[in-house]
């Protein structure tokens, strides 16, 4: 059931791929399997939402694929790079150059201005940002007038827009979002999700987002469902209703099984 690609996407290149990915905490009696041989591809220019109940392993999957966490077995590739063999330093560099992040708590540095926060990954790398690209990103998120402000002077929605811009600014191969709208009111959340979808549609960006909100998931091109550390379902072209239906279905399935 996993591979019934939508027309036009068959030739799409894979931005990130997990193969037989397992993550096990503890040993023996107390052993907890967070991820159980998960295989999944994230295609370029595709917006994927990862869903599942608490403890399903959706965050762990994202952390492992994004090079934030180590895994027990299997493999993860970002582009052509195999993550399993990388040392901390190389992983850090990979995250810096190829991955963008948006977190639930806004995670901006309070001492830096909005603009400085946006260019922070490039500053760390010691690279000059691509000015044209930067301008277009800033224009898209509509913060041109507030670039000199510090995070404390911005609203929650504006802060998260800055975070989106930061993720986009360095043109990463893939952007990961961990409940990016979790702390926002529905209007601000809708704005942020709109930007993420636009970045996929218009800029060809690849985005993977963990969420538990069916409305948020409806912005994605594809929704994957996790339960008990396993990939259980997948949905293309979702709407909030179809997502909710699937969730209910497999929630009851989960309970009965």
């Amino acid at each position, binding site marked *: 059931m996993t591979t019934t690609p939508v027309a036009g996407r068959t030739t799409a290149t894979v931005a990130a791929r997990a193969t037989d990915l397992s993550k096990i905490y503890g040993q023996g009696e107390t052993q907890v399997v967070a991820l159980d041989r998960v295989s999944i591809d994230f295609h370029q220019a595709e917006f994927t939402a990862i869903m599942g109940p608490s403890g399903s392993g959706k965050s762990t999957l994202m*952390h492992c694929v994004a090079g*934030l*966490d180590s895994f027990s077995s299997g493999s993860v590739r970002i582009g052509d790079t195999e993550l399993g063999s990388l040392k*901390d*330093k190389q992983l*850090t*560099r990979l*995250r*810096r*150059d190829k991955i*963008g*992040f948006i*977190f*639930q*708590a806004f*995670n901006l*540095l*309070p*001492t*830096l201005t909005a603009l400085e926060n946006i260019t*922070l*990954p490039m*500053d*760390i*790398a*010691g690279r000059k940002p691509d000015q044209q690209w930067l301008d277009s990103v800033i224009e898209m998120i509509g913060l041109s007038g507030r670039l000199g402000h510090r995070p404390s002077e911005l609203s929650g929605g504006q802060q998260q827009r800055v975070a989106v811009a*930061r993720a986009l600014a360095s043109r990463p191969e893939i952007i990961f979002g*961990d409940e990016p709208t*979790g*702390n926002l009111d529905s209007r601000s959340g809708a704005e942020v999700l709109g930007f993420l979808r636009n970045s996929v549609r218009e800029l060809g960006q690849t985005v993977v987002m963990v969420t538990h909100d069916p409305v948020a998931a409806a912005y994605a091109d594809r929704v994957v469902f996790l339960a008990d550390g396993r990939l259980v379902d997948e949905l293309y072209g979702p709407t909030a209703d179809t997502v909710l239906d699937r969730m209910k279905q497999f929630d009851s399935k989960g309970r009965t099984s």
Partner: protein
Amino acid sequence: MFRTALRNVFAHKARLLMTVLAVMLGVAFVSGTLVFTSTISNAFQNSSAKGFDGVDVSVSPTYQEGRGDSLGKPRELTQAQLATVEKLPGVESAVGVVKGFTGLADKHGKLVGGGFQSEGANYWGTKDARYPLVSGSAPHGADEIAIDSRTAERTGYKVGDTVRVSVDGPVLTPRVSGVFRTDDGNVAAGGSLALFDTATAQKLLAKPGTYDSIDVKAAAGTSQTELKAALDKALTTKAVDTVTGKKLADDQAEAISRSMSGLKQGLLVFAGIALFVGTFIIANTFTMLVAQRTKELALLRAVGASRRQVTRSVLIEAFVVGSVAGVTGLLAGIGIGAGLRSLLGTFGADLPDGPLVVEPSAIVAALAVGILITMLAAWLPGRRAARIPPVAAMSSLHAQATTKSLVLRNTLGALFTGAGVAVVLWATTLSGSDGQAPMGLGAVLLIIGVFILTPLLSRPLIAAASPVLRIFGVSGKLARQNSVRNPRRTAATASALMIGLTLITGMTVMAGSVQQAIEKMAASAIRADYVVSMANGRELSKDVGEKLAASGDVTASSPLRNAPARIGGETEYLTGVNGSTIGRLTDLKVDDGDFKISGDRIVVDKGTAKRNHWTVGSQLTAHFEDGKAERLTVSGVYEGNEVIQGALMDISTLTPHASDSRDMQVLVKTKDGVSSASKDKLIKTLGTNPVIQVQSKQDLSDSIAQIFTLMLNMLYGLLAMAVIVAVLGVINTLAMSVFERSQEIGMLRAIGLDRKGIKRMVRLESLVISLFGGVLGIGLGVFFGWAAGELLGTSMPTYELVLPWARMGIFLLLAGFVGVLAALWPARRAARLNMLTAIKAE
């Protein structure tokens, strides 16, 4: 509430560790001082009491009444008086005591004990109970001496060795006949004691057949007071003083405790500085703990705790922390007290043995200081905690650092700083001692003012460092911004370091300037190649001047010989010089008249002239010791200095009236000038005498420098404690910052800053804070050094501000090193932070 507070202490033990350490160090310093001083004072008193064991009454001569206007001299005790004493009923035994300076050369020809603690005395009879022999036998005749066991051990001399000894005249080379044990205080303090038989001692140290004092032991059944009364009756009371052994011991004990209390107070001042610096850390820690626990405290308020209870819970926490610090500090202090004694012992400053004395007052002081200081410093944060509204329990965010405006603080700080600077500047216009009190007041005001202003100062000063920090890329930029993020905290942390460095720099500037002034004085006033003097600073033997004058290598010499005389009812010390050569040996600035010394023509220094209202041409009458008078005329007024001052007159006029007066120093010019060969020749001319110093100008400066270096090093050692406490403060602040910012650090790691970058960020922040404190401290120190110098300069014409650039550079490096050192652990912690837990929203 108590249980909650206690739980909190345990929950935050790591974070409270630095606070405990800081308080502990201060308390250890205090209790260490108390334990050390009471231990050695007890030991000294025991040893001195033992020294008076065999003495029930001591008989000593009084001064003679001066005849007419002349001066008195001490009398001697005669053999006849000793015989009288011995025959008195109630006297078991009487010992005639002869004592005096006796220098002993070690195997390298150097004086043992540095001159001031080199003593000689007589061995009484064939078996002297005061000096039990360890080996060999009692000294007999002019060619034998006995030496104390500590000196024997230190120099390696054994019974049978020939040693070089000098009392006053030529060098003696007696044989060591025996080694004895003694509790003599001088020996205990690193000096030497050489014993001659009584006849030899009298010949060398007094006059044949005379004694300096008589120690009398009472027969059984006679009390000390009875014996004293009997002695007073038997001897002419006017000529002798009798003192009971008990009173001698009491007087000694009092003198010891007086000198100890000076030492104790001196040390406690430095302990106080360390504790003061510690309060910054305590206040910082509790402020941060309260800020971090906002939610928790608000919850307490929400479930019904009163404001008072919240404050009390913080204070109880402080009480527990203070108690732990007090107890551990006390234990450490006892260790320091014990360790310090053996440490001093290894440096050669021998102290008498004795048990470790921990007085109850030391225990009380340690606990009180630890607990009170901690609670006092936690009081403000505790009040702040009480002001947290219960509703804060509902909001999910950390409490922000107080964003309360700094306007009030800055105004207050500016007022204090302004007043401090004004008072200090005003004090510099006053002369000498008048300015001291205002200067101290101004300094305190200024330090308080600058401390209050540090948050304001931190921004421009740290901004000034940003070009340098930019080299380190994003880590540098973040470090700079983090360091000004909470100006109050940065200020308190940097202030702790500032205080120590202010004192260290101020002392260095002052000491360097004064040292140079004294050197200049000595150098500019003396034209002679060498100054010959006694190691103990007393008069030279008469033959020294004669030998030098007769030597073929010496082209010119003049003694500096002091003799007291009464002039117009006041005692003045006249200095006899060789009027015909003194002009070539000195270089004194003449203010008025001529520098002409011969016959009745004398010159006086400005100070003496002013005091006595003398001017050029003034006539005065001097009454000498021999009862005769001489009319003198002032021919010139010169500018005196530390080396040469007072009235100078020709030696040939002075000598007939002061036959006993001898040269304090002899100034010498040699054929070959200053060279090690000419110096060696002079030393040989004087019989290679260990107690005679031959010093060139360079030697004089060196010995002055040595004194200053020693003094400065001691001060550095004492102030090091304050700096160590400041380091703990920086560690504390950084650790707290890392803890507070863990989410940010996790995010930085996630978006691609590697561990090295994180480490560098924390280290640079630490460096910035430390250098900030260092720059402030050094700046203030230079200002105080300058101001104190202005005050000193009024009494020191050659005083000039010397800025020790090299030292200041070292201090700045030290501040930087402190920063790097303090960041070691927090930086590691930051780099090891678990990224995932850090970025997870709470």
